[in-house]
């Protein structure tokens, strides 16, 4: 069986699962949701078949599991978003269509050799910082939930930080490939451009109050530096710097202090600052082993008021954990693990430094982002608002992650073709 036929078979399985998910929401909530909603599942399957056809033409040898896994994650997310609010689900559906389109465009544009990106690495580096600074610009920047992350132009609203993440990874892959030998020697002056880009990114992040992304970017930076140089000392130094920086930030930045205090004891202010995290914990706990079932969880008062603010973005995992239970939540995390394993496998199979670094960076970014948001909800680390890749409601996140997927598939196709 060829890779693409395997992908097709997997997609059909995902399509059936999606149909089951929508059907169970429909059955559980008959009085609210129309029967036609099951057609969502069909449209969904059609969309992924289209993506599959593009992949068949452009990247015939690429990994056959990534696209179906993505389909599964977006399906789970869309089903839960639909269950929480049908109108949001429509918008999310549109964003998934846009995401698939961008995915297809990326594949088509870079089908011959994606490594041309390497020659534009500084452009990517600069645009990463530029994108990060956009929300800080007066007039178009918008603050939501305490973080200045959004850019609003007319009716369009997006988070440029998500795209900046991809740009940063491309820059790091190109730069580190070129400088890895000299960097491994540990001469300070070679770190200059790296530190400048990184420092600028950090500064912008502190400015925009987006702690989750700060952690994400820093993690990506350290991971890629380690892969390029193999120097554990750099990682240790970086983590040391981060802990030191965090200690200072805890003293100076009120928002950091608040987040850490809530993490340590959310019950110190159960109706104020700790409210979201506490109710999210209760939501997870209410799921138990088997969950309440799709559509049967409790997210609103009997009057219809939301009990957990931002439940379909930052807190979607709490909603899923309640309805799917430990079994379903663990299965979801396993999907992330399989995706991540496939990503690292691609990185290992690639035979040039840029491809390896690019795939490792994209994959680790994906894993770390899932860890930061879910770990925050589970109180493994302080909670910071960030999206769960492919699952959370949010257009920029969906589109950016489809680009990430396209990147991995391009690397994979090239690695598999050459063998």
């Amino acid at each position, binding site marked *: 069986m060829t890779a693409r036929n395997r992908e097709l078979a997997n997609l059909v399985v995902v399509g059936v699962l999606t149909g089951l998910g929508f059907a169970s929401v429909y059955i*559980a*909530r*008959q*009085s*609210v949701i129309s029967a036609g909603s099951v057609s969502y599942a069909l449209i969904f399957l059609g969309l992924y078949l289209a993506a599959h056809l593009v992949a068949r033409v452009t990247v015939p040898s690429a990994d056959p599991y990534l696209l179906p896994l993505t389909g599964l994650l977006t399906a789970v997310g869309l089903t839960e978003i639909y269950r929480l609010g049908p109108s949001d689900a429509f918008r999310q559906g549109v964003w998934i269509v846009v995401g698939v389109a961008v995915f297809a465009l990326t594949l088509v544009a870079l089908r011959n050799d994606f490594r041309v990106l390497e020659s534009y690495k500084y452009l990517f580096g600069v645009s990463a910082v530029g994108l990060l600074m956009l929300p800080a610009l007066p007039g178009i920047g918008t603050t939501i939930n305490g973080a200045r992350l959004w850019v609003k132009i007319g009716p369009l609203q997006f988070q440029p930080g998500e795209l900046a993440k991809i740009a940063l990874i491309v820059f790091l892959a190109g730069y580190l490939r070129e400088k890895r030998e000299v960097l491994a020697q540990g001469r300070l002056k070679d770190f200059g451009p790296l530190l400048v880009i990184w420092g600028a990114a950090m500064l912008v992040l502190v400015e925009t109050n987006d702690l989750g992304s700060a952690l994400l970017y820093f993690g990506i930076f350290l*991971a890629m530096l*380690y*892969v*390029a140089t*193999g120097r554990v000392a750099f990682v240790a130094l970086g983590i040391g710097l981060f802990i030191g920086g965090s200690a200072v930030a805890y003293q100076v930045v009120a928002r950091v202090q608040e987040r850490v205090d809530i993490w340590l004891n959310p019950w110190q202010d*159960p*109706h104020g600052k700790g409210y979201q995290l*506490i*109710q999210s*914990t*209760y939501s*997870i*706990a*209410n799921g*138990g*082993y*088997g969950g309440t*079932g799709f*559509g*049967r969880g*409790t*997210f*609103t*008062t*009997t009057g*219809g008021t939301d*009990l*957990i603010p931002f439940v379909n973005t930052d807190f979607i995992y709490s909603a899923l*954990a*309640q309805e799917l239970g*430990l079994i379903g*939540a*663990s299965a979801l*995390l*396993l999907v*992330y*693990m399989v995706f*991540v*394993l496939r990503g*690292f496998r691609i*990185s*290992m199979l690639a035979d040039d430094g840029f491809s*390896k*670094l690019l795939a*490792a960076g994209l994959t*680790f970014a994906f*894993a*770390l982002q*899932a*860890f930061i948001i*879910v*770990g925050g909800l*589970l*109180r*493994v680390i302080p909670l910071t608002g960030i999206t769960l890749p492919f699952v959370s409601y949010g257009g920029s996140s969906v589109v950016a992650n489809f680009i990430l997927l396209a990147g991995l598939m391009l690397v994979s196709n090239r690695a598999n073709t050459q063998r």
Partner: protein
Amino acid sequence: MNRQITKLAIVALVLLSALVVATTYWQTWAVAGLAGRQDNAIQRVAQFTVRRGLIYTADGKLLAARRAKKANGQTYYFRRYPAGDLAAQLVGYSTQSRSRAGLERSMNDYLTASNSHLNTVLRRTLDRLKGATITGNNLVLTIRSDAQRAALTALDKNCGAAVAIEPSTGRVLVMASSPSYDPNLVEGHFGAIARRAQGFNCSPPAPLVNRATDGLYTPGSTFKVITAAAALDTGTFKPDSTFDDPGYCIEYGKKVSNFADQSGPEVFGHVDFVTALEHSINAVFCEIGKKLGPLTVLEYARRFGFYSDPPLETPSNERAPSGLYDHGRLFLPHDPNQVDPGRLAFGQERMQVTPIQMAMVAAGIANGGVVMRPYVVEKVVAPGLRGSTISRTHPHELSRAVSPETAAQLTQMMQLVVESGTGTAAQISGVSVAGKTGTAETGASGVNTTSFIAFAPAEAPKVAVAVILENQHGVGGRTAAPIAKTIMEALLRKGT
């Protein structure tokens, strides 16, 4: 670079595995602790998706029922209390706006089928798999609805409480707290509860408080039963021990007079112990208290259950321990000089008691000196017409307070109180009643806390009762004793 990539992959997998571990923690170990928290808004709503178990009295009267309501595509089951104010504080309430109280709170696990009994776990799991609505277990209480209603009616507009216990088992047959309230008003009409309680003779009326287990009162002379128990059981005095009553007792060089009626302080002269209890002579008990010492008296109080929360299935914050209170805190002296033994002996000093504790005292003597652990939940039953019994409460000995001989002597002495002493208002024709009156001064002139404890029939007790009333102008034998009589009559009528 592949070595580094492998290591990075391991790091990423460890991070994601940590999430599985953490999710497991929150969805298994932590569940029980989180579900019961009062600020759990999810649970506060989710609990209404369970068909909450029903609550019945011993004679099958429905106290707590369900009311189904559809909203947002979910069916919610809210509470309806068809018996209204009948056992409001005991049953409590389960609402959205004010969470839970009473048995609705403490027995919540059973009522929502989240308890760990195998039968319940299986049924819950099956319901879940079938997609059926989970149904909670039903409760059958020990309360007798006829006597409970009689008690509430007899309490009338008085503030106070009445408790009746079956001495041989500890079954609580009546637990009435006045003013009561209509639990149907808690959700949505909370303000009406306080307004309706305004006609009662206390301020604030605090109808939500379960005075039977949480109300602390000065016992006055009903406490003499404990002093007498200590006096007889230690062998320090006998029923025929004689005393000289000058009408007062000297303590710390000051006179403590007998209770004053219309003709001034009474003086009884040469009396025996039996007469002293019959007529509740303070001066005699003052001397007995000084002879025994306060620590001995308190030790006997402890044997009857003082100094611990009255054992009952209601939430622990709705029960208060009886004992000496110093500045609002329970106080157990280790040095006899910290306590005035004379005043303690006749239930003044800083002694505070709950009605249920005094009912336990009466029940202990009625049961030959053994205090049975009081209980109010007879059994937990699986839902359905012929639901199997999930658990049944078995009678359990709490403590031996006094010897059977002492109990017999006290019974005879208390019978005389009702036959010819201060408690004649509690006489029931054809039944021998043993009792003791109490009238405690509150500091405000002419305003007393009155009480009465009793059990009947004296030779084979089937019911022990305690009544305590606030802000009374009369004495215990005239105010509390008739209420106790009404309750005992109601309970003896059909046999318990």
